[in-house]
């Protein structure tokens, strides 16, 4: 068998937020055509689920890649506190410039979590609803 065995830890978090999909680079008609009801000027909301996967060495003394309390605290501070019960467009600086599609939410969360000092961030998955999900692993084409 080739390749050494990798072990990763996955954790799911939740936040509820509102957003409005609207691009400043498009006309009103184009925004309406592209984003449909997601372009409603007052916005709408979702219960988002964020799944993150980190990898690393399992500490033999604890049996853990990372203590969950440390991981949870980091994600809470870096993401959940600034996203939960917020308007993504109004309250999260990154989405003043970028449309808060779930693709962009996924990328933004990855950027915020990739500096986690205790394990390597492998992947972020964001479920906007139970029927659609987006993943980003930091890849650039």
């Amino acid at each position, binding site marked *: *068998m*080739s*390749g*050494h*065995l*990798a*072990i*990763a*830890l*996955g*954790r*799911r*978090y939740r936040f509820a937020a509102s957003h409005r999909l609207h691009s400043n680079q498009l006309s009103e008609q184009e925004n309406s055509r592209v984003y449909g009801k997601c372009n409603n000027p007052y916005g709408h909301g979702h219960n988002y689920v964020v799944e993150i*996967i980190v990898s690393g060495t*399992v500490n*033999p*003394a*604890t*049996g*853990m*890649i990372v*203590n*969950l*309390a440390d991981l949870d605290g980091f994600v809470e501070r870096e993401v959940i506190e600034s996203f939960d019960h917020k308007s993504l467009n109004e309250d999260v600086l990154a989405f003043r410039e970028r449309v808060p599609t779930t693709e962009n939410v996924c990328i933004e969360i990855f950027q915020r979590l990739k500096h986690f000092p205790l394990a390597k961030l*492998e*992947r972020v998955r964001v479920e906007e609803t139970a029927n659609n999900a987006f993943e980003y692993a930091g890849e650039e084409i």
Partner: protein
Amino acid sequence: MEGARVSGWHLSRIEQVAQIMVYLTRRIEFSASHLYHNPALSAEENKRIFGKCNNPHGHGHNYTLEVTVAGEPDPVTGMVLDLKELKEILEREITQRMDHRFLNYEVAELNGQIPTCENIARVIWNLLEPKITQGRLHKIRLYEVPDLFAECYRNGAHAG
């Protein structure tokens, strides 16, 4: 030179078949109890690191295990491996060993290890990998609760 004699259609079809890789996943559940305690650490350190998982009488979970096998479908049967066979391997290696057990005391492979999700996943990987001879074990994902899981896979294999 043999290939030059087959038609273009035939050749491309052969190439296509040769490249097909399918991932199949089977899910099982088992229920088990455990506790986290490292005898090399003081009682206070155990409490600080492991929190309520350090309760000396243990506690339990309904674990969900997803086992993903990668391989080419057999041209005759259309299967990567026979699901019945995979089901039997999982029953023999995992369910019989871990279901309704106290992981610290009753699973020899976890002796001397803290039965965290990471360590249980590694034990499961090591039990299953040599038993899966059709296709190859690609990834396992072990859920301790729906919001916490560990994965094992060989580096270099796509983790998706």
